[in-house]
């Protein structure tokens, strides 16, 4: 893998830092008129998701990280692993629940999601920004109440719990924003 000098650090570049794959978020060139130049870098650890700041002497370099985002189809959960497939090649990947993390609650069989691979091993799973999921459990609401005020919890087919308006019923399909975990609208089938 190539190595990158501080001058090449830009948002999105994937590099190895402290043996973990990381993505650069921001790179600020800091240089006193008379003095040493530094790069102050904001960087996300792709394993833990944590964002840290780190300073480098200008001209230092970091090893690139073999990290790629691949669109895959979510196949199923066998109780121990989740399975994914690249639609074009039928190549399959499996991951442990801890890699899937919070994203797991938005994954429905056959849906497409983004799998981040590090050295060809899944590192993180990102669900689509919006998913359509059916409600499996919720209190009966008041028909005709379309105000949306208040709301109630609803359990979705994947196990996720979101707040929905009172008029939404069991069995209905709803659109959810996975970034905020919020109900967006009902979906007509």
């Amino acid at each position, binding site marked *: 893998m190539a190595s990158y000098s501080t001058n090449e650090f830009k948002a999105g570049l994937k590099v190895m830092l402290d043996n973990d794959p990381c993505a650069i978020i921001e790179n600020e060139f800091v240089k006193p008129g008379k003095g*040493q130049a530094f790069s102050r870098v904001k960087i996300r650890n792709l394993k833990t998701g944590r964002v840290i700041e780190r300073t480098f002497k*200008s001209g230092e370099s970091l090893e690139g990280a073999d990290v790629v985002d691949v669109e895959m189809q979510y196949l199923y959960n066998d109780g121990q692993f989740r399975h994914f497939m690249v639609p074009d090649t039928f190549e399959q990947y499996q991951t442990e629940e801890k890699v899937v993390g919070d994203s797991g609650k938005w994954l429905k069989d056959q849906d497409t999601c983004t799998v981040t691979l590090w050295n060809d091993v899944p590192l993180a799973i990102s669900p689509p920004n919006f998913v359509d999921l059916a409600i499996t459990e919720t209190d009966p609401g008041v028909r005709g109440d379309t105000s949306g005020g208040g709301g109630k919890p609803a359990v979705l087919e994947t196990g996720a719990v979101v707040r929905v308006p009172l008029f939404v019923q069991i069995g209905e399909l709803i659109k959810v924003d996975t970034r905020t975990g919020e109900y967006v609208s009902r979906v007509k089938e």
Partner: protein
Amino acid sequence: MSPDWRPTCTIELIRLRAKVLAELRQFFADRSVLEVETPVLSHSIGTDPQLEFFTTEYCLSPRRQTLFLQTSPEFAMKRLLAAGSGSIYQIGKVFRNGESGRFHNPEFTLLEWYRVGFTLPQLMDEIAELIGNLFRDRSLQETQRVSYREIFISLTGLDPLVFSYQDYCAYVRQCGLFEAVDICGHDHGLWLDFIFSHKVQPYLGDNALCLVYGYPACQSSLARVSEQNNQLTERVELFINGIELGNGYYELADAKEQNRRFDQELAVRQHQKLVVAVKDNRLVNALESGLPDCSGVAIGLDRLLMLLSDSASIKEVLSFSIHSA
């Protein structure tokens, strides 16, 4: 059609620049400071290991010569001073290789002026007056004057004049800046650069001009060593809202000392395998013949414009930044 032909700043900023240039010229005209022009191309160049320069080739067939693009007009202006010009100023382009970022463009505009007979405190008064004029609509707080040592101690608890490796390491660890230990090693000057950039500078001049004077001798550059305390130099730096605006000195006039500092910096450059610089012997000769006692300062005009227009990036005040030049 791609919009990449467009200026990186607004037309309003171009007008602001013109207005500031006119005001600066008026300011110096009112004080009988003479405007001068010196060459951008030169046979010699600053030896500072922290400054990377541009070189270019001068072809006068059959001869070819390497020339340098100035990193500052300082040497040429001092030669004018030694020749009896009296107080002078210049607004011109300077070039620093490898410097690009939110506050840096490899080509930028410097306002540099020298006052014959001025001590550093007198020059600081004039700097405060000039900044006060330019920022009159921005209601800046009163100018702060603070010594490097004082502000360093008050913000970090560390004494910048006494290098204690243990204390410096303990401090950066406590701040979560663990990488500083590897970066700085046992280099006192580098430690000061690191800690000052991270933990002092961001807090200087909150909506005010902050003048920091009395830099440690290891950061002397082209300033005189203080007569009262040889650990300090007669150097001042200007900050507003944590942004470094300029740098001034009670100018070194000792030819032998100047020559010694050049040779020392050339040796550092060689040791660090940096591009070879050619020292300015003509400056040494000028000092030899006699530089009048004077103080001088250089201010980055583009950063002044950034502050005057609340711009987040230098490209917002340049007609065409390096990426679209």
